């Protein structure tokens, strides 16, 4: 008998790393977690997508390797990268399935400048940095260079990459599966003050009229991509007063995320990529404050915690509205 799609949660999202910049061990991050960016998206039929490969990837990999060895999971992995700053890739050398015979890993990411993605990724395990070269591990690797606004399919996921405003370039992704959708918008600065290009910014750089047009265009396509998405995961690294001091660092505040997600049919916003200096106590305050702000705007706002699992789909939406 066919089940009513409303009887189950279509997609499960698990947060394995929620921190930005660098991992933060210690007593003040026990509740929200200290690992850097890594999110797992799973459908009920077992399709699995990994977004970003920060230190959180290590624990996820340990679990997936067990499942693979027990025959509960196939040996194919798809890793989708927003960009390759260290906090988004430093878990990769510790991804256990890569050390299992027969594993096949496809890495999807943006190509910036002239360097091939394959070259940039293998560069993180060059012998000066890591004892085992990527080319030497048992898994074989494929590299897929993504282009903003050019959708592609992985397993049963339909994925739309869109450009973000971040040093040297980054992309976010809208992921549609089983009749529902999530979006991953990290890392990005807002689209007003500074346009990030491919040179170092010692301080904020006043945008030229041409820069302003580029920012408007980026914001327009982001809003288009986010429209009607169930759950949006957003880089909210800074508190508003921190953002004022560092508008050229390439990150947003929860206020920026609220601005982007309100009034376009987004049901839920997840605050993500927490600044390393934000202790659990600060995060509690942020979580409470923005949950209230969201309520007033008709948006559910939650704050990402390590190992938090979110059900995304028609049933989750129905329960939330009842």
């Amino acid at each position, binding site marked *: 008998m066919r089940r009513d799609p409303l009887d189950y949660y279509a997609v499960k999202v698990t947060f394995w790393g929620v921190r930005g910049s660098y991992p933060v061990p*210690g007593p003040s991050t026990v509740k929200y977690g200290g*690992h850097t960016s890594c999110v797992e998206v799973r459908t009920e039929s077992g399709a699995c997508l990994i977004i970003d490969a920060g230190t959180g990837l290590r624990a996820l990999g340990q679990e997936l390797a067990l499942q693979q060895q027990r025959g509960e999971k196939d040996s194919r992995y798809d890793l989708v990268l927003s960009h390759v700053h260290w906090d988004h890739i430093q878990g990769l050398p510790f991804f256990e399935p890569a050390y299992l015979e027969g594993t096949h890993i496809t890495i999807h990411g943006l190509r910036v400048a002239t*360097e091939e993605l394959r070259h940039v990724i293998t560069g993180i395990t060059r*012998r000066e940095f890591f004892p085992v070269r990527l080319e030497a591990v048992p898994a074989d690797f494929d590299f897929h260079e993504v282009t903003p606004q050019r959708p592609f399919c992985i397993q049963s996921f339909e994925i739309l990459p869109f450009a973000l405003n971040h040093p040297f370039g980054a992309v976010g992704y809208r992921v549609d599966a089983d009749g529902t959708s999530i979006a991953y918008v990290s890392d990005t600065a807002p689209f007003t003050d500074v346009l990030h290009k491919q040179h170092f910014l010692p301080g904020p750089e006043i945008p030229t009229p041409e820069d302003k047009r580029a920012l408007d265009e980026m914001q327009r396509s982001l809003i288009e991509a986010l429209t009607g998405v169930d759950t949006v995961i957003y880089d909210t690294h800074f508190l508003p007063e921190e953002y004022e001091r560092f508008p050229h660092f*390439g990150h947003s505040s929860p206020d920026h995320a609220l601005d982007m997600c309100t009034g376009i049919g987004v049901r839920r916003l997840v605050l993500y990529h927490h600044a*390393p200096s934000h202790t659990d106590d600060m995060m509690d305050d942020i979580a409470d404050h923005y949950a209230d702000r969201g309520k007033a705007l008709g948006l559910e706002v939650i704050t990402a915690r390590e190992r938090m699992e979110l059900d995304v789909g028609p049933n989750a939406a129905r329960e939330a509205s009842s």
Partner: protein
Amino acid sequence: MKVRFWGVRGSVATPGPAYLRYGGNTTAVEVRTETENRLLIDLGTGVTQLARELMDGEFGRGEGVLPILLTHTHLDHIQGLPFFTPFFVRGNQTRIIGPEPTELSLTETLQNHLNPHYSPLYGLENLAAGVRVETIEDGASVELSGFRVRAAAMPHGGMASLGFRIEADGEALAFIGDVEYPDTGPLSTALELAHGVDLLIHDAMFTDEAYALRRGWGHSPVSDAIAVAESAGAKHLALFHHNPDATDDDVDAIVAWAAKRSRVPVFAASEGPAFSLKALSSKA
């Protein structure tokens, strides 16, 4: 001399409740003289915590002096570099003294780490303090803000990692953080570094049991750390570079195992307050 461990973990940082007592940050060790001269060993994630303390003092005003000894450039030993805020304040005198790693120079390797794909800093030239990068040869000695430092190259898997002997205030300590000795046992160069030191800080990433399955990975079993401490006549041994899979309870068990076998008093390095080498001796 005083020692403070800011990072004691190997390979990868380990946040979470199971790592609170020993700490989850990767390698960073601060050494101070009685006159408050400072020296730092390695730039693992632990330096992000040290940075906060330094910035409250003269480093926040651009008046700090800090020589940094770099054992090698594996990621767990340099990943704090882009976040070490004293590098961003003009006037601070910082220098990195490390090994010439491979076919690439040390500067090229650090530039690679900060290349714009991987870091919004784009390169060493954007560190406002203007960090100086120098190399030190195997067996060479150098005088650094009141410390006498001798370096020796230790085998570490496919590459070398520097070990250091550091002397000041009439005391000595040795740091051998990443090493796997040949089957013939600890090298004479390691024993020379650690000869008669008040404290030996030594790689003990693997239990002897686990080491049997991890030969060639570039790290030591606990018994090698003990062997070096005993043969070199070290007064104390700190087990270091804890395995990322070793929880606080696991490290407790390793220390208990080591204490039963070691003739040299042994403890496991843990993040926490500074301690003086003198206090260590009066405790024992």
